[in-house]
């Protein structure tokens, strides 16, 4: 993507050329935005803070999926399974071994990454649709493993109760506190994802996505980079899973299921594949739509009284499914593309192009 710069702005040093934030007002806007986010619990009510928390965790998982699916082009419907791995590992480390959450989360990320490597192995031989099936296998085998294996440790289908994370003596025991944990993690993962995408690694990923045979001819080691993409995606999923497990304070094999995997993939498409803003936009919009489904349930109950009990379960997939389908038909490049168009239009005003 050619970078559009306004007329009269020149790069006078390499550092300035590579800088993400170029102007003083951009720093100001960023700091204001962060200040707004961090002071949110002071004036917003519990349900909004809780929603922000959920969105933050979803963004982390989608960022990982973006590295794998958006940049490397390997379609995965197993992201939620790696969240399960991360959640379980971090829960076990904190509960049974008494680790601090600060140490348990990276360990969970690493563990999930290694499991992700294993399920990425078929990428050596197969691609496209076949690889999607391998990730689908992960989505079934991993939850089954947590249900059946080592019942004395993993507690079978019941799952585990997870302790509240304590860092430097502060207990993150309610959404208004937990949101700080999520936001701080999110900022770190965003910076890492952004820098991966514009480094050698990210360029190799894009080369594989655009034409894997050509990439291989140019000396990009396909297997190595595909496995790295799987590893990174699972690491992100592990972090998100660990955060979610400690937020919900409970985890079982159904906490992150196939529908969640589809949801994460849908968020990525709604936001825009292969863009760092896309992961953020998509997670926010889809979570808001699902929240809208929950809020509009009473209205639909009047229309379909037969389904009163399961209305929310019916509306969520319905709203999400139609949103995804409409985006695929009318804006396959996602909201990030719209955002680019909007920025370009703003820069060029009052001219149309």
């Amino acid at each position, binding site marked *: 993507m050619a970078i559009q710069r306004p007329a009269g702005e020149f790069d006078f040093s390499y550092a300035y050329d590579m800088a993400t934030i170029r102007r003083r007002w951009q720093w100001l806007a960023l700091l204001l935005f962060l200040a707004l986010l961090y002071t949110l619990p002071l004036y917003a009510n519990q349900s909004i803070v809780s929603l922000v928390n959920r969105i933050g965790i979803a963004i982390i998982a989608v960022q990982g999926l973006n590295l794998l*699916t958006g940049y490397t*082009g390997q*379609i995965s*419907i197993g992201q939620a399974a790696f969240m399960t791995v991360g959640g379980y590992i971090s829960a076990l480390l904190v509960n049974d071994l008494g680790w601090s959450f600060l140490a348990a989360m990276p360990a969970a990320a690493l563990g999930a990454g290694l499991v992700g490597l294993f399920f990425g*192995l*078929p990428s050596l*031989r*197969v691609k*496209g*649709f*076949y690889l*999607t*099936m*391998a990730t*689908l*296998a992960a989505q*079934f*085998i991993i939850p*089954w493993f947590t249900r*059946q*294996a080592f019942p004395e440790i993993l507690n079978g289908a019941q799952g585990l109760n997870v302790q509240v994370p304590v860092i430097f003596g502060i207990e993150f025991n309610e959404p208004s506190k937990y949101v700080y944990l999520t936001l701080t993690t999110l900022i770190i993962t965003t910076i890492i994802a952004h820098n991966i995408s514009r480094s050698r690694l990210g360029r190799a990923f894009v080369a594989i996505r655009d034409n894997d*045979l*050509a990439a291989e001819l140019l000396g990009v080691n396909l297997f190595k980079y595909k496995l790295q993409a799987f590893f990174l995606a699972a690491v992100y999923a592990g972090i998100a899973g660990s955060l979610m497990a400690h937020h919900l304070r409970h985890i079982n094999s159904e906490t992150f299921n196939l*529908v969640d995997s*589809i949801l994460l*993939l*849908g968020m990525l*498409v709604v936001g825009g*594949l292969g863009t760092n803003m896309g992961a953020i936009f998509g997670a926010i919009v889809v979570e808001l739509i699902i929240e809208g489904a929950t809020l509009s349930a009473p209205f*639909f109950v009047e229309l*379909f009284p*037969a*389904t009163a*009990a*399961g*209305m929310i*379960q*019916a*509306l*969520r*997939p*319905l*709203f*999400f*499914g*139609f*949103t*995804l*389908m409409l985006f*695929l*038909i009318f804006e*396959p490049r996602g909201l990030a593309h719209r955002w680019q168009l909007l920025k370009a239009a703003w820069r060029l005003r009052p001219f149309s192009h």
Partner: protein
Amino acid sequence: MNWQLLPQFAITGILAGGPIALIALGLVLIFKSSYIFNFAQGQLLLLGALITWYFSIELELNLWLAIFLAVVVMALVGFAIERLALRPMTGQPLLSIILMTLGLSQALQGLALLIFGGSQRNFPQIFSAGDPYKILTPLIHEGKNITLILKQNLVWSFIVAIIGVIIIGGIFQYTRTGLAMRATSEDHELAQSTGLRIRRIFGISWGMAGVVATVGGVLLATSSGLDLSLSLVVLAAFPAVLLGGLDSIPGTMVGGLMIGLSQGLVKVSKVAIVRNSAEIMPFVVLMIVLLIRPEGLFGQKRIERI
């Protein structure tokens, strides 16, 4: 291993593979003509069964008439899906098409729950649940011959499924429409330039997939009851399709039966965790197939050209 149980579980597994083969057939049908893998097949199955239920129980029609009407409705649903959801996706990358069918599956699942509600319902019995068939085998265990017990509805749904696979296979192999479908799957543009109306062919294959899904849904619902989790059964058919080969109709049968057999065989084990692995057995088979022979047993190996 409880060896004396082996024949029983093996035969039950193979019989259970019949409906899996039929579901796999619906997937292969669409894949063969339009190169789309339909993740929404489970929801089509569910809708087919729910509509049959609606006609036969709510409207109190004759069961066979109800099935016929449901088949007609589902064929129309298939057409509609092709026209509204998949046609705009023509020429789009694989990811968009996969996501379209995934989105479709979510939308249809929500729609089914919204209209029909989520309660478990009794599906009319098609095949009598009466005396199971008993077969005496020459195998001897503890001085007695082992008797195989086959439930009637399992046997009959197996037979219906196999007949379905043979009919659809026949249509593909011996009719002009089938020939047109095979040509279309080979190369869309080439087929169109020889005068085939590929839009109509896509429509027909989606319609046929709707019909096959209804039959599969009715077979599954009559043996295991009808609720919204019916759509999940289809997930066992994905590995069957890959095992048999994505573009092979005889492959769906072999794949379906082998998946059923693998699920039956692990149940023989004395170790609890192996016994309980029946539900993920299809996916273990899937991983093995992907690592050893990705094109499946009967599928065509595609050679990549730049």
